[in-house]
């Protein structure tokens, strides 16, 4: 059963969620980018804004419409609300040679993700497999994740660096949400097609004035979906490229290593990168100690530090680790790809490295290259 609501219902949804004690997080314009932050009303959405994204490029561009969701992949992902940049792991106190350890109760604010894209929603599903593994459950993630109220949004205007179609993660969300909406615009007033994904989603919709979707509504939605599918900015072919067979000694790795700054932007922007490190410190008297978990990046030189040096010292080895983990070994570890095709790593790379282009080049066997092989 699909429904349609008017534009002012977004405000009502937000108000209802807030009245239930939820902090609503949604896309907002901040510092010339679209990011995610607490919102109190639908006015705070990026009304009339879209993005111009490319390798190493992000610009906000005004549309001439009232669309609230004309953008695609904002500068940040949603992972930091479930996997914070800094998390206190333990607090300990030592006195008279005895150490007492306290595990802080995980902070689990009640939140709603309002306006999460299909790719980012898929990313949550991927992180679930990492942090909710029954053998190793992360306390913070598991305290926050089940309660998150999800209002997902289908993409009408994919970005130039998007390739969710290649990764089978979009552009329209199909599961994992409480409600999924699509902005219907271009024929009079803006309306929202609403799909129910859960009981509590149905309850929220029940509070609003809605009507059942007509055939015309559904057709408009399907056309929007088809248009989005056809306008992906990038492509990562999966069928003819046996990713698992990528040659770790391919000369392309040297080529990308010359461009890569090992800055780690891609890992910060990526919605699925989950690496962290621990930082421990004491107060001046040495009586109280804290250990924090902090985001880390496999691009850092110290990431693989062992006594005597690091295992992956060259930029080449670190880029290769990131790319092969994201697209190949992640599959062995978690039964999914690590990539959702959001394109953030391309947009936010200072030198515009495009992993779809790198994969396309790596897929050409080196021997073919040496022999001056023909077109691929």
């Amino acid at each position, binding site marked *: 059963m699909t429904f349609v609501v008017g534009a002012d219902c977004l405000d009502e949804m937000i108000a209802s969620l807030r009245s239930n004690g939820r902090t609503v997080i949604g896309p907002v314009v901040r510092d010339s980018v679209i990011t995610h932050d607490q919102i109190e009303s639908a006015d705070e959405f990026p009304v009339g804004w879209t993005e111009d994204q490319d390798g190493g490029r992000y610009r906000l561009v005004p549309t001439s419409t009232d669309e609230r969701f004309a953008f695609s992949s904002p500068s940040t992902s949603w992972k930091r609300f479930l996997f914070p940049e800094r998390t206190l792991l*333990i607090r300990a106190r030592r006195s008279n040679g005895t*150490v007492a350890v306290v*595990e802080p109760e995980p902070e689990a604010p009640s939140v709603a993700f309002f306006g999460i894209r299909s790719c980012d929603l898929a990313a949550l599903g991927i992180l679930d497999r990492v942090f909710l593994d029954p053998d190793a459950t*992360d306390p913070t993630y598991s305290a926050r994740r*089940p309660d998150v109220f999800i209002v997902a949004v289908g993409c009408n205007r994919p970005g130039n660096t998007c390739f969710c179609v290649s990764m089978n993660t979009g552009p329209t969300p199909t599961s994992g949400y409480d409600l999924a909406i699509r902005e219907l615009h271009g024929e009079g007033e803006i309306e929202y097609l609403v799909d129910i994904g859960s009981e509590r989603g149905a309850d929220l919709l029940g509070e609003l004035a809605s009507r059942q979707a007509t055939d015309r509504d559904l057709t408009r939605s399907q056309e929007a979906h088809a248009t989005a599918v056809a306008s992906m900015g990038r492509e990562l072919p999966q069928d003819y490229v046996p990713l698992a067979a990528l040659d770790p000694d391919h000369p392309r790795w040297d080529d990308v290593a010359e461009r890569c700054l090992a800055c780690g932007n891609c890992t910060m922007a990526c919605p699925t990168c989950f690496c962290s490190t621990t930082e421990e410190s004491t107060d001046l008297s*040495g009586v109280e100690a804290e250990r924090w978990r902090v985001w880390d990046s496999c691009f850092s030189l110290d*990431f693989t530090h062992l006594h005597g040096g690091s295992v*992956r010292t060259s930029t080449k080895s670190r880029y290769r*680790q990131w790319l092969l983990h994201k697209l190949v*070994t992640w599959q062995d570890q978690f039964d999914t790809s690590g990539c959702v095709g959001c394109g953030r790593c391309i947009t936010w790379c200072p030198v515009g490295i495009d992993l779809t282009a790198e994969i396309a080049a790596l897929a050409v066997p080196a021997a073919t290259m040496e022999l001056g092989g023909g077109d691929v």
Partner: protein
Amino acid sequence: MHLEVADAPSPGPMVPHMYRVLSRRQDLADTVTLALAPVDSQIATPTIGQFNMLWAFGIGEAPISLAGIDEHVVTHTIRGVGAVTNALCGASEGDQIGVRGPYGTGWDLGGATGRDVLVVAGGLGLAPVRPIVARLFARRSEYGRAALLIGARDPESLLYRDELEAWRSRLDIEVEVTVDSAQPSWRGDVGVVTKLIPRAPVDSANTRAFVCGPEVMMRFCAQALVDRGVPPAEVFVSLERNMHCAVGHCGHCQLGSSFVCKDGPVLSWVEAEPLLRIRER
């Protein structure tokens, strides 16, 4: 949307149990053996080849293999190479040290029942295989011929010298020791430990081998074992990587598809060889 989430365990996976130093022995200038007993709560009984994350208050944790398991007492031989390990080496009897674990895959000695057992240890690698030797002696009749090959930098760097003498005096195990360099007063072998492998008195085709030491030593030893006919699936090595969480979440210990903390540290040569073959993997 309905997400099934198991209740997070309490205490969580990052909370250490406090142990007390029962005894401390200075093995070498930079190496110390600590026997630890739980203050209150304790870890599950480790299997041989596993490791614990040892915590030096206010400094951090380091992954250290178990060198001995005796009911609730765990023994670790630690070499001081950084802030954490130096602090652990500086611990005195009675000091409290945090323990998280046990982690990782262990040495599968049980799978060698009825067969010959060959243990090759280099340098500090003698510590993680010490529990293999103990288990072997405890159940000697379950195994065929047994040989222990030990390499060290020089005679002064040999660990567990008293125990070594006791092992050598036994008739039911062949112990060979070689050092990379020595003074003329040393009457033993001089040369790399790989040299001891071709003549070890075991039946190659019916042998399970356990190798532990610096990575370059393990690579050459594993190759020498395979060269003399030990099946690669029967050669086991113990790898080492940077670790913070030891539960497969921090990402630091990855080697190919493996998390060394949970898919290792013990791997068969069949799995380890292709991973180690690629430089800077």
